[in-house]
């Protein structure tokens, strides 16, 4: 969203005022040399590696370098070990390493060696020569500090500090400026600056104190703090005015601990904090002068990560961001010393701010005389708070990263990496593996080929669909490419599990394998090992503290826990992706019978701990416990019910269909039965209107099964969201096509199954989607790896252990029947074709082919229909008799008289009825197509039945989309279907060549007399209407199955078709019969018109060629010679090639154009 102008204006005002104040108070320009210094130190130049640890920095004045060199020279000769050890019981660095059990430092590290060598010398020097700071340096320091803060302040950086403190300091300066002596003037300036900047510098109180001491001491000879007796402090305070006194006191309190000066004692052992590890880190100094002793404890200041919004308007935002990422360290005695390297800062800041990690450190090798940008060796210990281990024993700890959620870098992991801790148990999937290009990947060629099968999202940007028909099925993958893509094992070495006794049918061996696999999957991923197997997304680390055995970090989400993340915590369930016709339904039923598990949870004896289970258990008391919820497309509802009832022993399970009219809203009702059946439509409608409170969401299911799970392939759809929101112990997806169009389809399934980390879009996108779209084959390889444990997919070609096919089905006999048009037919077609071609050529000439896509499809549609039967496109005749229309009109007018609701006028109704009489099929106001299966509302509005019903939230009633009148489903009037035809087809009936061929085939079958049944598929119900005429006249018993059938009638029709012997033919529309149906009663398939995509035809054939089919399946495709149908076949073949190659947007566009031109050739 854009910022609206008003706000911008307001901000601009504020911004201006800040700037102006800042300008008026701006200090006099600083000497250039100093400024240079600061540039180097500013956050934009964080590290200057060229500076040696002992040498002077290059930015120092030459004088300083000389001094330093001189002192360094001294270092080498002045050394008194006896004095040193006698005076202070300090340990050398190497001893220190031993004592602290530090194995982190590598001896080979040249820097470390350097320090270790130097260390003894340094110590002796420090001890033998009490520090005597000479005035110039001290003053210089002060000036520098001032300049520094200004600089920082200018660039928007800031220490975070106690603002109250700063304020008070400021007051003092304002009220009694004369009391303050020279050095402290600098100090004052500094604070003044701070105040203006508004960035709230927090200055360590100790720091301030030190300055005070300086003030009261002779400025020219500053004694080392360590030698100042404590009484001095007292007297200092008493001399000051009340303001200063207050401040002083406060400071003294804080200082007490380290009155002795150098703070170098041992760190207290704190039982709450567990040592993670120790390491040497080279910090960089940000100050000059002698301030640091070996072994002196340093304190770290962490920015809290919040940039004040005010400052961001005028400060350089990049600088501000950089300042947020700097960890500074100071000593109690000297204030700020330096800062940590960026890589450490970055990971430590969020960790420390989370209050779960603590950092303690000391300096192990201080340079004698500190100069800017000098390296300081620190030895730092990292502690982690015990609370992450003990909170309920199963707390998982996740940093709330303020940065964007898409980040895939996690601070704790970075810390471990920096500490050179490697996991003793690595995660199975690691981002590095996937990121690094080094990893050798051997792909089967097959996979390479498959990779290009999926249409790339990249290639689809070009406005219109890739394929000719903007039909959802248009891009369906063929089964073989799917196999290549997701992999179908040729052989599974799975155990077989005997089905439960309540199952009344026999299972085939591969189905028993599936039962075993599904049962195991519900127990966990790998049953024998799951308990001991680390969750593949987690890595195990050991930390130094022995009280904690290990710490587990989820390398994908950054979550940390000490509780062993078992592999069982992964999704229970999976994807049963056996190819169509292998009996997924029966396998699922056997699973339900084997493990009904209603009300009994497995996790009662397991000690489940992940969060979801936690909520699951705590909610147990309140929420009703359901059995198995099966969600399927509406067409399959009755089939599921039938199969559940026929395959299970009576009374072994209860089945409840939650669909239709008066559905209960009481979750207890649907929690009661063993199995609840519902449709995707009901699920999403319920979710849409009630959200998390919908009846399905209120139940804790034992198992949720999505049949034809690719229905939820679009993860953002209401339907998918509703499915994701279901609470369930086990989740199953049944689908023959886990991937339909796009790799993303799979993401949705993984989301539903709660497969971590892939249900997190950031990871999916980063590691799979993006690589895949960029042509990196590893994306697909990973998909295969993810799916391997999660998916069971066999095809009809899968072999069993002995190498026999798992399923022996009768063969199929597929033939294309070429029809030749009669002369009259051909003339008609030709006329239509020429007319269409003129129009098409016009579009081509205007260069507007792709803009008129819909129009062109319309032209093609007419041509294709013409191939089936010219009647389908013939102009209207007036000979029709609509006896029922008058009845209809009367009904409207009757309604008008006795109804109180506002009704349409008589004139309007008459107009509508007249339209109907004329056969005028108006456009549906919802889909804007000429209404398919139109209905008439009591308010006399016409629209597609489908469109109207889908606009309702309820299945039985809703509002009229036109006039918002309340309608009931039972009030709808089906418009007379005869109006589809514009000639009296029955009177003038004449077979087209295609119809003739079909009738020939049917006659042949009838003559054979073996009772073979046939299914006739067409994509146009109007063609099915036409086919009824010759079937009737030839006394061939037939049934009709299309979208206009109610659910009840669908069941009835299918039952009648399979059980009676007089109905030999089933006329079926593709849309209605595409999925899930079991049509094995028939063995002849007639595909009357070619579909754009062969995968759709394949699906239709599968309805017949599946388990239970005992005869050879004869498939006949009808193609009319020398027509658009024949060329569609060519386009079809071409398209297969096209999809296989990776095409650019431009190529796809031109290809589409070519394709169209080909059709109009």
């Amino acid at each position, binding site marked *: *969203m*854009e910022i*609206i*102008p*008003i706000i911008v204006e307001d901000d601009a005002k504020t911004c201006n005022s800040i700037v102006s104040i800042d300008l008026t108070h701006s200090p006099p320009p600083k000497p250039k040399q100093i400024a240079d210094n600061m540039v180097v130190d500013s956050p934009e130049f964080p590290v200057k590696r060229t500076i040696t640890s002992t040498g002077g920095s290059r930015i120092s004045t030459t004088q300083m370098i000389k001094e330093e060199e001189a002192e360094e020279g001294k270092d080498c000769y002045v050394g008194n070990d006896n004095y040193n050890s006698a005076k202070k019981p300090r340990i050398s660095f190497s001893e220190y390493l031993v004592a602290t059990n530090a194995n982190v430092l590598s001896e080979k590290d040249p820097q470390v060696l350097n320090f270790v060598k130097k260390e003894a010398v340094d110590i002796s020097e420090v001890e033998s020569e009490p520090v005597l700071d000479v005035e110039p340096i001290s003053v210089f320091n002060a000036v520098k500090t001032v300049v520094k803060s200004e600089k920082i302040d200018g660039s928007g950086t800031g220490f975070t500090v106690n603002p109250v403190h700063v304020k008070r300091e400021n007051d003092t300066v304002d009220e009694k400026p004369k009391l303050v002596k020279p050095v402290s003037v600098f100090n004052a300036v500094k604070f003044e600056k701070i105040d203006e900047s508004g960035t709230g510098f927090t200055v360590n109180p100790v720091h301030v104190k030190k300055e005070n001491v300086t003030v009261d001491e002779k400025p020219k000879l500053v004694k080392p703090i360590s030698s100042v007796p404590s009484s001095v402090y007292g007297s200092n305070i008493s001399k000051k005015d009340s303001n200063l006194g207050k401040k002083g006191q406060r400071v003294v309190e804080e200082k007490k601990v380290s009155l002795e000066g150098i703070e170098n004692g041992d760190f207290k052992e704190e039982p709450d904090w567990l040592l993670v590890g120790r390491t040497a880190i080279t910090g960089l100094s940000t100050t000059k002068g002698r301030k640091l002793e070996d072994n002196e404890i340093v304190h770290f200041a962490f920015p809290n990560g919040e940039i004040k919004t005010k400052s961001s308007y005028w400060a350089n935002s990049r600088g501000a961001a950089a300042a947020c990422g700097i960890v500074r360290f100071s000593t109690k005695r000297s204030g700020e010393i330096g800062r940590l390297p960026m890589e450490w800062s970055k990971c430590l800041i969020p960790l420390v701010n989370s209050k779960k990690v603590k950092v303690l450190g000391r300096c192990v090798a201080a340079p004698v005389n500190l100069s800017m940008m000098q390296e300081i060796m620190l030895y730092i210990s990292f502690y982690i708070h015990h609370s992450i281990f003990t909170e309920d024993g199963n707390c998982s700890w996740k940093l709330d990263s303020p940065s964007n959620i898409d980040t895939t870098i996690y601070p704790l992991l970075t810390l471990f990496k920096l500490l050179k801790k490697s996991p003793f148990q690595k995660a199975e999937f690691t981002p590095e593996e996937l990121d690094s290009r080094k990893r050798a990947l051997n792909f089967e060629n097959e996979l390479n080929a498959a990779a290009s099968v999926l249409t790339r*999202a990249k290639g*689809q*940007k*070009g*406005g*219109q*669909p*890739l394929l000719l028909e*903007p039909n*959802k099925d248009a*891009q369906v993958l063929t089964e073989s490419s799917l196999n290549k893509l997701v992999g179908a094992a040729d052989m599974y070495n799975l155990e077989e599990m005997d089905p439960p006794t309540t199952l009344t049918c026999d299972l085939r061996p591969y189905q028993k394998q599936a039962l075993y696999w599904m049962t195991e999957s519900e127990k966990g991923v790998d049953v024998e090992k799951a308990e001991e197997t680390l969750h593949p997304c987690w890595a195990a680390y050991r930390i130094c503290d022995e009280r904690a055995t290990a710490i587990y970090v989820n390398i994908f989400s950054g979550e940390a826990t000490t509780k062993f993340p078992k592999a069982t915590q992964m999704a229970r369930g999976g994807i049963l992706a056996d190819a169509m016709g292998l009996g997924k339904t029966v396998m699922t039923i056997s699973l339900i019978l084997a493990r009904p598990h209603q009300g009994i949870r497995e996790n009662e004896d397991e000690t489940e701990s992940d969060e979801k289970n936690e909520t699951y258990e705590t909610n147990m008391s309140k929420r009703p416990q359901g059995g198995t919820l099966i969600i399927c497309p509406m067409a399959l509802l009755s089939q599921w019910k039938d199969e559940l009832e026929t395959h299970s022993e009576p009374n072994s399970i209860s089945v409840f269909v939650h669909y239709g009219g008066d559905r209960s809203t009481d979750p207890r009702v649907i929690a009661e039965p063993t199995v609840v059946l519902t449709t995707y439509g009901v699920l999403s409608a319920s979710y849409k209107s009630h959200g998390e409170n919908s009846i399905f969401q209120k139940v804790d299911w034992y198992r949720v099964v999505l049949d034809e799970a690719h229905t939820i392939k*679009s993860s*953002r*759809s*209401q339907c998918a969201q509703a499915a994701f929101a279901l609470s369930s112990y086990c989740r199953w997806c049944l689908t023959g096509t886990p991937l339909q*169009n*796009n790799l*993303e389809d799979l993401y949705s399934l993984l989301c539903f199954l709660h497969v971590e980390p892939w249900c997190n879009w950031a990871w999916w996108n980063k590691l799979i989607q993006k690589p895949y779209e960029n042509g990196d084959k590893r994306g697909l390889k990973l998909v295969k790896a993810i799916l391997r444990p999660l998916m069971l997919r066999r095809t009809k070609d899968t072999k069993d252990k002995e190498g026999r096919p798992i399923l022996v089905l009768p063969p199929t006999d597929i033939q294309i029947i070429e029809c030749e048009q009669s002369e009259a037919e051909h003339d008609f077609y030709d006329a239509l074709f020429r007319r269409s071609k003129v129009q098409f050529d016009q579009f081509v000439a205007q260069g507007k082919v792709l*803009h*008129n*896509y*819909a129009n062109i499809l319309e032209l093609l549609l007419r041509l294709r229909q013409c191939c089936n039967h010219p009647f389908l496109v013939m102009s209207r005749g007036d000979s029709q008799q609509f006896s029922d229309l008058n009845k209809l009109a009367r009904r409207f007018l009757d309604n008008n008289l006795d109804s109180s609701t506002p009704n349409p006028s008589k004139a309007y109704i008459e107009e509508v009825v007249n339209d109907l009489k004329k056969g005028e099929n108006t456009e549906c*106001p*919802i*889909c*804007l*197509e000429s209404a398919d299966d139109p209905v008439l509302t009591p308010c006399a509005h016409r*629209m597609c039945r489908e*469109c109207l019903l*889908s*606009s309702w939230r309820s299945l039985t009633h809703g*509002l009229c*989309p*036109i006039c*918002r009148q309340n309608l009931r489903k039972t009030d709808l009037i089906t418009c007379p279907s005869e109006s589809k035809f514009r000639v009296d087809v029955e009177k003038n009936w004449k077979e087209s060549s295609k119809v003739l061929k079909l009738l020939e085939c049917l006659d042949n079958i009838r003559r054979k007399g073996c009772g073979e049944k046939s299914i006739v598929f067409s994509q146009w119900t109007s063609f099915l209407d036409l086919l009824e005429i010759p079937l009737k006249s030839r006394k061939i018993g037939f049934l009709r199955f299309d979208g206009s059938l109610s659910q009840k009638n669908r069941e009835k029709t299918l039952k009648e078709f399979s059980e009676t012997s007089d109905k030999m033919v089933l006329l079926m529309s593709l849309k209605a019969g595409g999925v899930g149906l079991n049509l094995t009663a028939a063995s002849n398939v007639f595909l009357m018109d070619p579909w754009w995509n062969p995968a759709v035809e394949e699906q239709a054939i599968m309805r017949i060629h599946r388990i239970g089919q005992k005869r050879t399946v004869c498939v006949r495709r009808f193609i009319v010679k020398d027509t658009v149908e024949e060329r569609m076949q060519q386009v079809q073949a071409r398209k297969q090639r096209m999809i296989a190659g990776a095409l650019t947007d431009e190529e796809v566009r031109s290809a589409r154009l070519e394709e169209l031109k080909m059709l109009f050739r």
Partner: protein
Amino acid sequence: MANSNLPRRIIKETQRLLSEPAPGISASPSEDNMRYFNVMILGPSQSPYEGGVFKLELFLPEEYPMAAPKVRFLTKIYHPNIDKLGRICLDILKDKWSPALQIRTVLLSIQALLSAPNPDDPLSENIAKHWKSNEAEAVETAKEWTRLYASGA
């Protein structure tokens, strides 16, 4: 990707919008997302917005036409039913949506809303108050804003 499964209805509506635009309204789909439209509405005559060219954005959600399109003014406008983010208080965009409505009808409704501000059902309390207490002055402000923000384009 957003375009791969564009329903026929959207294609048809778009074609019609382009071929027979409604008077005073232009709507064209974005190049890379056919569900996103750049819309311009001319301020209706005899309204305080006369002479202004108002830019809007319109997005057809996944569920369209079963769910209302999302429309927002991009041009600043002083109107009691339009807030400072450009959001529009119009029943047909909310609970009164019907799938029989189209992009065209929605935009016409918005145009009508410009002609007939309704301070009794306000989205922007301040402007509505202004409108009710001193309509003449409010209309002046609206004219002023139209001149300031909606005349450049």
